[in-house]
């Protein structure tokens, strides 16, 4: 059963570094699991914890946010603002009892195709081991 489980992971990728990095992984024909489908945003700074929570409540098993390395942000430091939100979000995820492994923030540059592939592989594995989140049902059952 657990082996049959394929996690659904929402990816938010910054256009300049991480999405380009993901494309590079493709250009180099690197293989990785199909569980993450990516939404392209201009900057990881566009991502608001609310969107992450919504994704989880809608049925995502994990959320991956990827942006430029600190210092390389195309918009100076949007990624730092993401980091600020992310760290506070992590604290709240702990309170919710949601494993931190389900929400990841990674720095992937346009040159790091292999890193992107690696991130997707490891995150898919981790979330698969954690099992489905299906938050909605959990909440209803807890009624």
């Amino acid at each position, binding site marked *: 059963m657990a082996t049959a489980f394929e996690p659904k992971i929402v990816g938010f990728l910054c256009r300049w570094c991480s999405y380009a990095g993901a494309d590079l992984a493709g250009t180099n024909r690197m293989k990785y699991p199909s569980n993450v489908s990516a939404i392209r945003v201009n900057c990881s700074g566009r991502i608001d*914890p609310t969107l992450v929570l919504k994704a989880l409540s809608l049925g995502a098993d994990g959320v991956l946010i990827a942006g430029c390395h600190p210092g390389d942000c195309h918009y100076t430091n949007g990624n730092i603002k993401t980091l600020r939100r992310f760290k506070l979000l992590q604290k709240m995820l702990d309170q919710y009892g949601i494993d931190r492994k389900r929400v990841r923030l990674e720095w992937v540059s346009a040159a790091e195709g292999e890193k992107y592939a690696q991130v997707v592989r490891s995150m898919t594995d981790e979330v698969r081991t954690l099992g489905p989140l299906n938050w909605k049902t959990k909440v209803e059952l807890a009624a």
Partner: protein
Amino acid sequence: MTKTKIAFNWASSCGGCEIAIFELGAKLVNLADKVDIIFWPAIMDYKYEDLEAMPDGTIDVALMNGAIQNSENEHIAKVLRAKSKLLVAFGACAYLGGIPALANTTNRDQIFASSYKETPTTENPEKILPQTKTQTREGELSIPEFYSTVKTLDQVVEVDYYVPGCPPVGDQVSSVITQLVDGPLPPKGAVLGASERSLCYECKRIRAEKKIAKIVRTYQTIPDPEKCLLEQGIICMGPATRGGCSSICLDANMPCRGCYGPLPRAIDQGGKMLSALASIFDAMTDEEIQKLADSVVDPIGTFYRFSMARSLMRRTKA
């Protein structure tokens, strides 16, 4: 002319909303020639039977306050819904879950354990816990079933309007009642007696640059009454909370706790406030940021103080 039939009722609440209505005092009397209060257990001796006896739709406007935390709350909400043309979720608890919904960060067993076993003042040697049914010599006694997850009113019945606030402030209450009595009626689902903009719009404090180098809790400082509290490091929910409360807390030099609830376009009051707050952390390095994040005590309790039941996640993992 026929008077508008009004009902007030409470579910899981502190009674503050009842007092808010009661405090209308004279205004309430002025309403008397327009309205007929036909059900108000908090003030006059009504039995549920009286309510259940009414034909459906008897009540023109029912204002229900309090969250739904047990089977009785849910039952009476349903009855009231059936008997009323308009049902209004009155006050933060009915609208958002309110303070009772903070119970959603724990569960029934833990609550019972601390209330009936662990608290030092509890004297309960046989460790008896509330049972919905108890056999006695006189026969079977029953009490309502206690829920693990607190719900908003509209999570159990259809709701026509919402009035935020813990409690809703006086003049808002009277204007809402007048509006519902005299019309014209706002679109279904509208939030009444509150502003469309956040509290900051009516806040008189001076704003400089939004930057937070250190989180300060209210007991640790006496804030400058002139300056924006957030800029003084105090977590003020103002930016993420509807105005309309005439900023009474701020005038008392206390930060907004968020009782007027999320803004029209905000997906989630707490999440939005968390994002806003973290965004203005005055920190660049991983360590600095971590330090600031760690200094935010109890994010859920802070950002969802009143809106837990209506939040995206609704409760913590049970």
